[in-house]
């Protein structure tokens, strides 16, 4: 798989159709987000599988936003899994990236990783490498949904109370690009004090992610307190789907119902 991807990147760099390719490399024994600009460097390419499949994924779309803001006229390639591609679609929709300036280099996740993520689309639309595997059933969410309401409430309050207010969930998220963040608005979240305001902090973020979260799971992996954040955002995303038939990042051109004015759509 990695050789096919190397060839693809090599081709893009050699005919100068991109200025660089945002991807991962292995250096000093660690996987690192990077930009490839020379074909010679490609022997360091990594897909983000160190000990286990997908265990060293990084927010490559976030890296791309940082670069694109500085180099808006240049075209860049970016390595994408299914989740990253959903991220790209969402960032196009929110005008953070220009689809004409991005060349996605997609590959499919193996079933093992798709299961661990309970991923609803473990492949990009047009993969360069890998076999498309099936959508996975959302077990973790069903489990929590199955609790009665008071148990569920105390489950979440217990989880939220572990928060150390590191803002890692926001910082790691490629869909969190706002220059001013509600989680730093003093009317919602008190500044400079701990413990964090619960459940306001986490629910504010969950509300804001309702039409943005593409379920990559990077927030949960970055959370030092092991709060099941991904399940929380899967829930808000499920509500969006039930109410409006919308799932963030699945359709390339689809507008979010939350950004439309006027009467609710029929479904």
């Amino acid at each position, binding site marked *: 798989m990695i050789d096919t991807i190397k060839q693809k990147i090599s081709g893009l760099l050699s005919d100068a159709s991109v200025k660089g390719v945002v991807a991962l490399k292995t250096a000093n024994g660690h996987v690192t987000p990077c930009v490839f600009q020379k074909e010679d460097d490609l022997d360091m390419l990594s897909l983000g599988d160190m000990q286990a499949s997908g*265990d060293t994924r*990084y927010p490559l779309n976030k890296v791309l936003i940082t670069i694109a803001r500085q180099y808006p006229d240049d075209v860049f390639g970016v390595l994408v899994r299914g989740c990253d591609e959903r991220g790209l679609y969402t960032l196009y929709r929110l005008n953070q990236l220009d689809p004409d300036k991005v060349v996605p280099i997609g590959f499919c996740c193996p079933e093992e990783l798709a299961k661990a993520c309970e991923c609803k689309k473990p492949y990009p639309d047009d993969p360069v490498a890998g076999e498309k595997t099936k959508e996975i059933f959302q077990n973790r969410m069903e489990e929590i949904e199955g609790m009665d309401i008071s148990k569920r409430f105390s489950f979440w309050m217990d989880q939220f109370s572990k928060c150390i207010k*590191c803002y890692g969930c926001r910082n790691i998220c490629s869909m969190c690009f706002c220059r001013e963040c509600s989680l730093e608005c003093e009317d919602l979240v008190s500044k400079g004090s701990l413990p964090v305001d619960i459940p306001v902090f986490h629910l504010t973020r969950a509300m804001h992610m309702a039409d943005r979260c593409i379920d990559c799971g990077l927030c949960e992996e970055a959370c030092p307190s092991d709060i099941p954040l991904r399940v929380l955002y899967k829930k808000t995303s499920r509500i969006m789907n039930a109410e409006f038939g919308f799932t963030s990042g699945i359709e390339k051109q689809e507008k979010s119902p939350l950004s439309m004015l006027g009467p609710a759509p029929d479904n």
Partner: protein
Amino acid sequence: MDYRNTLTTCTYCGCGCNLFLESLDGRLTGTIPCKTGPVNEGKLCIKGWNVHQFVQSGKRLTKPLLRKNRKLEEVSWDEALDFIASRLKHIKAADGPDAVGFFASAKVTNEENYLMQKFARAAIGTNNVDHCARL
């Protein structure tokens, strides 16, 4: 275009979390926790997440300052170190080694702190060693 992620260790405390300092064209743009760092496994506290910010802070002291005629003035490292050495010698000779105290830092490595206390005890001859986290 020069985009880099430089692997380094957080300077804020002694835990030793691994992180990447993200830079674009020579300016720091962010911090990314290192997932393969054995100490922090891709997680950071709020200080670590913002560690890139102080490096480029305009408030940062980048040159030694020496108070002359009640005013702080920029001086060379040589002048600053000569001044420190001569004052330390003078104080030790006049009032004994215990007239000097040493404050180590949470923002340097274990090894640098070791060196500091070694200097205090072996070169100056005092056990007056403390740490900024107790201030």
